[in-house]
């Protein structure tokens, strides 16, 4: 029993000592705070992880609030870098700088058995709004359209709906919580159509071209593929960035970051 108590004490003391150590380590680290678009979570995650491995003294925080809130936060000085998945509005651009870090290409996918291979953005909008309910109306076989989408909080859904002008109007058949689920479901249902980040599309589904343009890194970079949006770092015009924030920003816009951006499912900017 004595031994037991001694062990307990020893564990307790060492735990307290360790906790003490944790408290003092922070003073030397620098923090870069980012705030904004939930769609950029993966990109920021990959970039900050890779950056922090190389720069041990810097800690990058990310607060997923949404593009609007992120722009607001950086203009009020509440964070170092604002994250936006839309371009700045003219009045915002008066005081803020925007730098495109990556491009988000959203691919439209159907089952390989579906004869349809090209849709216009207008057709896609009508399909998702339920105005076109049968594949025969867009050149397919006589079968009902099954609309596969993402959950309400998804960044991909937000991007897709804002580009096709279908916000809050989509008549989804299924709302799935991951890109993988969307691809899987479309691959098993011959009548399904879905959207997913280009990087996560595989051979089990058929990639649609939109207005005649097939999505690829190239067509997304030159802007001919339409269902895409920019991932933007927003910084104040009148204020110098902290050294750490500037360094992270330089890293994110350098060629070294391209690999991480691709891993995160986005398309790097053409340099």
């Amino acid at each position: 029993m004595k031994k037991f108590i001694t062990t307990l004490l020893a564990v307790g003391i060492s735990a307290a000592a360790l906790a003490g150590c944790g408290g003092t380590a922070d003073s030397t680290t620098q923090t870069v705070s980012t705030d904004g678009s939930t769609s950029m979570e993966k990109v920021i995650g990959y970039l900050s992880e890779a950056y922090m491995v190389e720069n041990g003294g810097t800690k990058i925080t990310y607060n997923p609030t949404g593009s609007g809130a992120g722009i607001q936060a950086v203009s009020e000085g509440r964070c170092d870098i604002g994250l936006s998945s839309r371009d700045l509005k003219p009045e915002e651009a008066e005081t803020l700088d925007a730098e495109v870090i990556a491009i988000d290409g959203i691919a439209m996918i159907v089952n390989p058995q579906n004869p349809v291979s090209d849709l216009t953005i207008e057709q896609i909008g009508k399909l998702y709004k339920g105005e076109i309910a049968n594949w025969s109306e867009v050149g397919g076989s006589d079968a009902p359209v099954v609309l596969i989408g993402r959950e309400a909080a998804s960044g991909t859904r937000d991007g897709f709906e804002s580009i096709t002008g279908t916000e809050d109007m989509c008549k989804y058949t299924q709302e799935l919580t991951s890109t993988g689920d969307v691809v899987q479901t479309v691959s098993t249902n011959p009548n399904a159509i879905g959207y997913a980040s280009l990087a996560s599309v595989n051979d089990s589904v058929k990639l649609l071209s939109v207005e005649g343009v097939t999505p690829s890194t190239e067509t997304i970079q030159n802007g001919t593929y339409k269902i895409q949006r920019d991932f933007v770092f927003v910084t104040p015009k009148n204020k110098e960035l902290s050294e750490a924030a500037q360094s992270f920003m330089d890293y994110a816009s350098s060629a070294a970051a391209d690999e991480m951006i691709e891993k995160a499912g986005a398309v790097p900017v053409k340099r």
Partner: protein
Amino acid sequence: MKNLKKTTDALEKAMNAVFTFCGFLAVAFVLVITVFLVISGIPAIGEIGITDFLFGRVWASTAAEPQYGILPFILTSVYGTAGAIVIGVPIGLMCAVYLAKMSGGKSAGIVRTAVDLLSGIPSVVYGLLGMIIIVPLVRKVFDLPDGANLFSAIIVLAVMILPSVISVSETAIKAVPKEYEEASLALGATKTETVFKVVVPAAKSGILTAVVLGIGRAIGEAMAVMMVAGNVANMPGLFQSVRFLTTAVASEMSYSSGLQRQALFSIALVLFVFIMIINLILNFVVKRGESDE
């Protein structure tokens, strides 16, 4: 010698304190969870209005003008659970009868091992199999545009509640005194008649316990149904894409904010109240079963 007695006494006291502490820890967890859910769940209900919240038919939490009606979720959970019970309980009960009364030693062992394994399979695996096998099958068999609907969820839930239904009702059936059965057989009843008219009625309260446990398991399941039910906040229909109370919380929690987040806590509170009611019923059933004997 005296010294040794002293240390034993001290040890006894210390361990007594440890046991008591652990006992109360469980109580503390329940209290903390309850208090937390009530505190975080009430504000949104107040803001939305309890009738709009509980009986509103539209859930559009991220729309420009958000609406927070959870009637579709409540009904889906109730229908889904009821469906799972309707399919799962008869199968489970008959399996329990087989295990307790009909089978010889070796085959019962195989079935029992299978049932135990079934209970150990993680729910995400049920969901995955449901998504890959049941959803396409339901689509083909019923000639639907899409197979992710309430019916697929019911099938998956029915399989998931089998282990608890089987093991609890088997115990109940085995507890029926052998004399009842022998008397029935001696009076000339067949084995089947004996099972359904003597053994099952005698094991009634145990079987009811199994049913209530099954309800609890089905209503609280999130992962598996999220993968097969389609998750659109429709009013429930058998072949309609639906969202359960559990999946409503799980699918939106990660990025929710403000009133939407609070409303998700309120849904969790509603679910918690459901589970509490089920537990109370279970206690009642068990107590009545005891007083019967």
